[in-house]
């Protein structure tokens, strides 16, 4: 089973209120190193077979039409999970 990963971020010029809330909370836990946070979205699109160029093209179209709103967001990446190191299994990265 293949997987396409789509990442969407708020546009740089759009104030990201969610990121602002997170950056406000970090110092309360002692994380004073981080001066800014922007919060985006990650979608994992599963397919039954391999991720072909056609599947990637369809994922790019879905990303542009439904998964993001170009007025407020940018699609920053559309990739085959198998082609990205560490992405193939979807295993969470532990601390």
């Amino acid at each position, binding site marked *: 089973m293949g997987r396409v990963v789509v990442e969407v971020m*708020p546009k740089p*010029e*759009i*104030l990201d*209120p*969610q990121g*602002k*809330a997170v950056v406000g909370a970090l110092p309360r836990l002692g994380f004073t190193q981080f001066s800014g946070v922007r919060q985006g979205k990650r979608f994992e699109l599963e397919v039954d077979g391999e991720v072909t160029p056609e599947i990637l093209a369809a994922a790019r179209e879905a990303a542009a039409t*439904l*998964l993001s*709103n170009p*007025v*407020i967001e940018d699609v920053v990446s559309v990739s085959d999970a198998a082609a990205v190191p560490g992405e193939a299994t979807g295993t969470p990265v532990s601390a």
Partner: protein
Amino acid sequence: MAATEPASAAAAAPGIAGARIGVITFPGTLDDRDAVRAVRLAGAEAVSLWHADESLQDVDAVVLPGGFSYGDYLRAGAISRFAPAMSAVVDAAKGGMPVLGICNGFQVLTEAHLLPGSMVKNDHLHFVCREQSLIVENARTAWTNEFRRGQQITIPLKNQDGQFVADERTLDELEGEGRVVFRYDGWNPNGSRRDIAGISNERGNVVGLMPHPEHAVEAGFGPASAEGPRAGVDGLTFFTSVLSSLVHA
């Protein structure tokens, strides 16, 4: 008995009898019944429409009510925009049919590209619910023609994703073409660019706004007004305006 029928609305606005205004319900819509009630109080026939239906049942105008369609999980209005009923709304709107998007309905209209810009989370991150003062900036649209330009009105506002954003060029275009229909008065409750509360398309048949006119249509159940507590009925004028625009169309 005919003499005691609630004929006041029809009598007040002769010629509008028979106007049919559709109200679309999406999964997660909250304010459809209030919108239906507002349409009736204005003297028109309300037609309940379902998002999965492709037909608008030959209505003369459509209201997209507020709520949290599809939970707003992806983005507010993003999934509703692809509902079968929305294809019909987009076609009808391009043909000149009056369409009003309230709150989540406004978000659906921007996602459907019938109106420019978009809504993001309120700048202060809190849900707001208040009686909101607005200034009517354009009294020529299908939904505002019975207001005066510059008129102050008060209707409820309640939202979390109410911050209207667009790029500077789009904002300049909206201002230049008189398409800013309402501006927040006194306090900007969500950080909207240039205090914009509502806008229209070029033709003025499509209007979207974040505050809720359908909650200010009957004395005793509206916001406070000069006439007393809960006496405000400024929202009713949206619905009488569209009837007036249908008569003169």
